[in-house]
């Protein structure tokens, strides 16, 4: 198994990073979009996160966005050309054009048990830099629930090089710690860390 190396794979990020999240209602894509924005705030970056609003139904495809920037963010349009696409549910690949508008060097991170090469062949994906992480399995084994958002954030932090893993761990302990018992918080920390370690590149 080949894991993603942060030094080699970390994206050379421009001043503005735009992330598009694809998931299904109930998988926590919106929460993940907001979590990354809030971690960015802790790293003294400018941030914005918003879902593409529609009827909110469990299981229906949903889209959310995160913007992170060194400069104040004034644009409120939807993200057209994401540098990073995070797919929380691999069953969306045949239904939603997840790479729409993403430039050829965009990072595409998919929650999947398959290694990137196999997933690429299966999904007939052209171009872009594909990464996979078994986020649902990690979530079940660490948190005890099949909500893949926290491990997806861990993998995204690794492949994007946006912030150090410790900054997200600190955030989880501080913010989740306000709302959840320690067992849940540490489960999320474990999920985040495992996904960070296990995400695979091509």
């Amino acid at each position, binding site marked *: 198994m080949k894991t993603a190396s942060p030094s080699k794979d970390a994206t050379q990020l421009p001043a503005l990073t735009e992330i598009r999240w694809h998931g299904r209602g109930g998988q926590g894509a919106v929460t993940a979009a907001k979590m990354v924005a809030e971690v960015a705030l802790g790293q003294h970056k400018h941030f914005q*996160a918003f879902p593409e609003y529609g009827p909110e139904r469990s299981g229906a495809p949903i889209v959310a966005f995160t913007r992170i920037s060194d400069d104040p963010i004034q644009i409120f349009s939807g993200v057209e050309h994401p540098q990073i696409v995070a797919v929380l549910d691999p069953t969306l690949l045949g239904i939603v054009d997840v790479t729409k508008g993403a430039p050829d060097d965009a990072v595409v991170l998919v929650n999947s048990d398959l290694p990137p090469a196999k997933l690429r062949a299966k999904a007939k994906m052209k171009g872009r830099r594909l990464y996979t992480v078994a986020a649902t399995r990690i979530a079940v084994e660490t948190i005890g629930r099949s909500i893949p958002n926290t491990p997806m954030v861990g993998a995204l932090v690794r492949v994007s090089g946006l912030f150090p893993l410790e900054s997200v761990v600190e955030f989880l302990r501080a913010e989740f710690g306000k709302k959840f018992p320690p067992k849940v918080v540490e489960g999320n920390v474990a999920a985040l860390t495992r996904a960070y370690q296990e995400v695979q590149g091509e």
Partner: protein
Amino acid sequence: MATVAPILAVTGNEAVAEAMRQINPDVVAAYPITPQTEIVQIFAQYVADGKVDTEFITVESEHSAMSAVIGSAAGGARTMTATSSQGLALMWELLHVASGYRLPIVMANVNRALSGPINIHCDHSDSMGCRDTGWIQIYGEAHQEAYDNHLMAVRIAEHPEVRTPVMTMTDGFIVSGAIGPLQELETEQVQEFIGPFTAINPLLDSAHPVTVGPFDGLHGWFFEHKAAQQQAMDRALEVVDDVAREYAELSGRRYDLLDPYRMDDAEIAIVVVGSTAGATRMVVDKLRSQGVKAGMIRVRLFRPFPHAEYAKLLGRCRVVGVLDRAESFGAQGGPLFLEVRTALYDCDPRPKVLPFIYGLGGRDIFPDNIEEAFAALRKAASAKKVDTRRRYLNLRKDEV
């Protein structure tokens, strides 16, 4: 002097609810409606948790919400409410009552399209539609203003020279549901800034009985009341500016009656309301880097409309484009277009003014669309004859 507050990551609705918590009004009567729901939900929680002293009146509709707000304000209470879209529409007849009684109510409106077809997304047809109900209207751009505008609105509404209800606007979902940055004042600072509420001729002062809203017919003073409302609107221009100056001393954030960007030598300019201003500024910067003398004005105060300031800033332009996120069916353009063009009528030479419609029912607008609008302005600047019919931005051409 301004202190540096920590930056919070909040939704636009949370920013509004925070302002309401710090204002701590005597009475809030509100009914939840998408996309304003979060404001009412959070504020009701503050009431339940004892974080505010507010009497929260649950009501069965927005018509009742506005009725209860009018009753409590007339009774002598500092009063607020919040709504959107159909909710604002259901309040309609009572909006005139609130302004006609000169009640200093503050209402947060989270902009959303009016049905039909059914749509929950952002446009300005709700608040633009009630521009003639006698309320002061302030439009915000993003999260910080969703907070700041409410603190200033309390002072404006209650100012003895104004005594007129104020409606504050935040773009539905685009800002209300997005996470963005907010810097808050300390609650004590807010309380000091807004000051204690002074009721004028309150109904509950039984030692000095008054009647509010009796019949005022053919031989009465109805007409004079309406003239007085207009005089208050005229005075409001100065009051809004004074309050903003004082708020700037407190917060470090200065809000003018309108928000110009690179207008000093602009030959073409766009006038826009709300969250689209940011993308417009980016396009202005791009055009400037190409040597195009482009500028922008973002609307803050729409009622009263500071027409003299618009004439002063836009009068030197060759062509002005007005971006309306609302329709005025059968008119020559949207509500903002009609206002801007009227403001420029007395300019000599008079700029050409073009109407654009965009973003109805939440249709997204991208920098490319705004560039398209600027391209139309550039073309009009050199054309002998200009087509001044509506131009639509990001309208699906294959299906209309």
